[in-house]
């Protein structure tokens, strides 16, 4: 029996870029093929070729042994190929049924939508695959994990049997990932075949039957999950040995650089979201703030960097009171800030890299003399930082918006960490980045620590906190649950603290809190 889907020698060129270079893929019926690769490796291009959004420059596509030409999503759907995009294509104000019907509505009396017929089929599909979705629920009210199931139902409703899932776990909580994997298994049991695109190694190893790794538009290698591990896959992805655990010496903390006492901060809805928080960060150590997203970490960082007023308490930077200081005063006092949302806060996307690199030094010599910007100095600085921080770009005049997420973050890191600052505040420094960039940014933060800076890292990724931090501040509902030194931190205890539960038996941790306070 021929494979359900076969790509042969697919090549796609864009001006100046070879996005796909002679890619061969084979998907067997009832199997999961994982497509692994860093951002920009060519995964999305390849899937867009398969879905008919791009026409390949070379190569052939076979579906069940038949050579096919796919000129658009319509052709793809007719061939039984369906895709769940990373960003869902759903209308939030319509019900599940209406969303699923969209584009192939059942009609009664030539004029009216026949929701009942569609809802019945959706119910059947939902039962059959254990999807558990209410056909009459409003999509906007559903959690992300269920919305994803609606997307899958859309494909099944259109009788797709080759499902492409593009980074399906990027937006899911661990529990929802578990649920998705159950759904995938029941799909496989009914004879569906799946292409699973990801850059998360653990998940790929868990769910796939075979793995193809893309790098720089080419196939870097294929592997079977039972014969691979995270390390070997990461090396294939990045093209060199990757250190997944960060190598660092024990911290040598010195005098406190940042002292926060009883800080209270208001959130958007004018209610207190940071409640009487006290901690300090010492020179030569990394303090990690752990917590589920939305427990006051964002507002805490905004307040520390002067972007959000404090309602009470005190913040001292190198002994100087900066509780109500402006961002510029705090920056000039020796603070670097890698903001949580790089595109919203950290960059002007339409500016070239060179202009983004001067964002907080543009008014100081040698960048400016009086009010006149010194173009030579700006260029010289940009060339140096781009080389030093390994920003991959055709030129320093390239608009930052056209760089990949990892390179955008490197521009920010280059700007912030190249200054001789005593305090580094990094918020979600590696969110959405690939393995290579994460490794690089972690090493830069540790370099700063070893040079004697105090480093505060806020992250929703517990792994990141555990591998970087020397002390861990756990936040829950705006309060500090505990401050745990890394030697005493276990994944389980921190997880419990993040959920607002005190592991009582760990009396030592409570002592640690008191010491820090």
């Amino acid at each position, binding site marked *: 029996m021929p494979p359900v889907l076969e790509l042969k020698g697919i090549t796609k060129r864009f001006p100046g870029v070879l996005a796909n270079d002679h890619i061969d893929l084979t998907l067997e019926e009832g199997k999961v093929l994982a497509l692994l690769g860093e951002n920009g490796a060519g995964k999305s291009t390849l899937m867009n070729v398969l879905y008919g959004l791009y026409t390949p420059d070379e190569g052939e596509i076979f579906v069940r042994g038949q050579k096919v030409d796919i000129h658009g999503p319509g052709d793809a759907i007719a061939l039984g190929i369906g895709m769940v995009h990373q960003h869902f294509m759903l209308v939030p104000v319509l019900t599940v049924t209406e969303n699923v019907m969209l584009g192939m509505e059942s009609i009664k009396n030539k004029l009216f939508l026949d929701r009942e017929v569609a809802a019945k089929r959706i119910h059947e599909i939902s039962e059959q695959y254990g999807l558990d979705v209410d056909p009459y629920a409003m999509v906007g009210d559903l959690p992300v994990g269920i919305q994803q199931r609606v997307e899958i139902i859309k494909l099944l409703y259109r009788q797709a049997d080759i499902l492409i899932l593009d980074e399906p776990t990027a937006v899911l909580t661990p529990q929802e990932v578990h649920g998705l994997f159950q759904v995938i298994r029941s799909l496989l049991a009914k004879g569906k075949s799946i292409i699973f695109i990801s850059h998360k190694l653990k998940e790929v190893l868990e769910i796939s039957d075979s793995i193809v790794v893309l790098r720089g538009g080419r196939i870097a290698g294929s592997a079977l999950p039972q014969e691979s591990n995270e390390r070997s896959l990461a090396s294939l992805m990045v093209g060199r040995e990757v250190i997944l655990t960060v190598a660092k010496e024990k911290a040598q903390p010195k005098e406190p650089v940042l002292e926060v006492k009883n800080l209270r901060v208001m959130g958007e809805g004018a209610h207190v979201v940071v409640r009487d928080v006290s901690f300090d960060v010492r020179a030569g150590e990394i303090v990690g703030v752990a917590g589920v997203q939305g427990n006051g970490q964002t507002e805490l960082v905004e307040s520390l960097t002067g972007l959000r007023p404090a309602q009470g308490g005190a913040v001292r930077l190198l002994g100087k009171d900066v509780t109500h200081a402006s961002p510029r005063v705090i920056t000039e006092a020796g603070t670097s800030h890698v903001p949580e949302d790089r595109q919203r806060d950290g960059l*002007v996307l*339409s*500016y070239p890299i060179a202009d983004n690199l001067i*964002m907080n030094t543009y008014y100081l010599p040698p960048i400016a003399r009086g009010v006149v910007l010194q173009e030579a100095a700006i260029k010289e600085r940009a060339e140096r930082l781009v080389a030093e921080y390994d920003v991959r770009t055709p030129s320093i005049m390239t608009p930052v918006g056209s760089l990949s997420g990892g390179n955008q973050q490197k521009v920010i890191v280059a700007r912030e960490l190249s200054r001789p600052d005593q305090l580094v505040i990094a918020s979600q420094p590696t969110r959405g980045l690939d393995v290579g960039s994460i490794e690089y940014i972690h090493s830069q933060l540790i370099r700063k620590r070893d040079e004697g800076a105090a480093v505060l890292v806020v992250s929703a990724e517990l792994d990141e906190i555990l591998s970087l931090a020397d002390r861990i501040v756990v936040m829950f509902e705006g309060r500090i649950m505990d401050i745990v030194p890394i030697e005493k931190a276990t994944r389980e205890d921190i997880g419990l603290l993040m959920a607002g539960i005190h592991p009582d038996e760990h009396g030592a941790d409570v002592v640690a809190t008191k010491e820090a306070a």
Partner: protein
Amino acid sequence: MSEKNTTQGKAQKRRSRGRWRALLTPLMAIVTALILGAVVIVVTDTSVYDAFGEGFGAGLLRIVEVVVTAYGSFFAGAFGDPARMVRGLSTWITTGDGSDWVQSLYPLTETLRYATPYIFAGLAVALGFRGGLFNIGAEGQYFIAGLTTVFVGYSLTGVPWFIHVPLALLAGILGGAAWGAIPGYLKAKTGAHEVINTIMLNYISFRLAEYMLDVGGPMARGDGRPVSPVIQPSAQLTQFFPSNPNIRFNVGFFIALLAAVFVYWLLFKTTIGYEIRTVGQNPRAAKYAGMNVPRTVVLTMALSGGLAGLAASHDILGVIGFMPNSFSSGYGFDAIALALLGNSHPFGVVLSSLLFGALQAGARNMQAIARVPLDLTDILQGLIIIFIAAPAIIRALYRLRTPDEGEGAVMTRGWGQL
């Protein structure tokens, strides 16, 4: 190293090619508008229908005639008649009488004279766009600046021109800047949207000017006419052809060009411009970078108002010589189109202002000679703006390639965001 250099060279070449392509779209928009304008001229000309009554060939001939006469007089009105210029020049050389030569330059100088306030007002709106602000109030700022500039122009006596002219210009700048700073301040402090506030301030300034200039008003001339006194000769902008009173072309045009260079320098070469553009592109990032966003907003609106004010100074000190009550210019509104047409770039604004100046000058001649109503200018302007605002039409029509997205202007933004 050499490989890096070539990729940079390529990027540079691509950029300069992109710049030409950026000019191609507006150019094709103008050509398309002229073609459609010709259609309008033809279908509104009754003689065409009469000619078709005589026969198909006669009708076609008449169409060509109508279009050639209309656009012929249009171009003659905008740029002058080359044959007449040559004749005038030879008369001047042979007889020493240059008056014919000067008169032959009249159309060209009218184009430049019309373009001058357009440049100032277009720069005003373009600067606002760069700073993320939509200044619809250039018209109101023009009125207030008219009052301040004319006041200094007529009330100050006994000072030499090299003091009086700069003072009167400064009065215009300050009047416009103050009027522009008000909505800027309201936006910075309360988040009130500048579109609404500049429109409201337009009405206030119109009525204020009426009150000041109406018969018996504080600034009325006192001869029963609702106009201001005439400015002192020392406040007049230098005229280039004082021998020919028809030609009103004056030094203001070159001040406008200087203003364009200044705005370019300010926006792209100084820290102030960097702040204005950053606030315009991404106010959150500007705040993050430690910029004083409210102050920048006020400054941007004040600078914008000051530029709009210079348009009034030019008209009063260089052309009219006093301020009439019915001063309505429409420059403030055309300026929005000019800024869009010029992609909010100072030099783009100069080019689009020259185009609009030519349209104004040409249309007047076209009305006089070809009996095509002045309103055709509005139609042409409207068509050009539609094609510029919807470049996809032009690109589809002529199969041009989509240019790369660059730093443009922020046209609209939600309420109260800073």
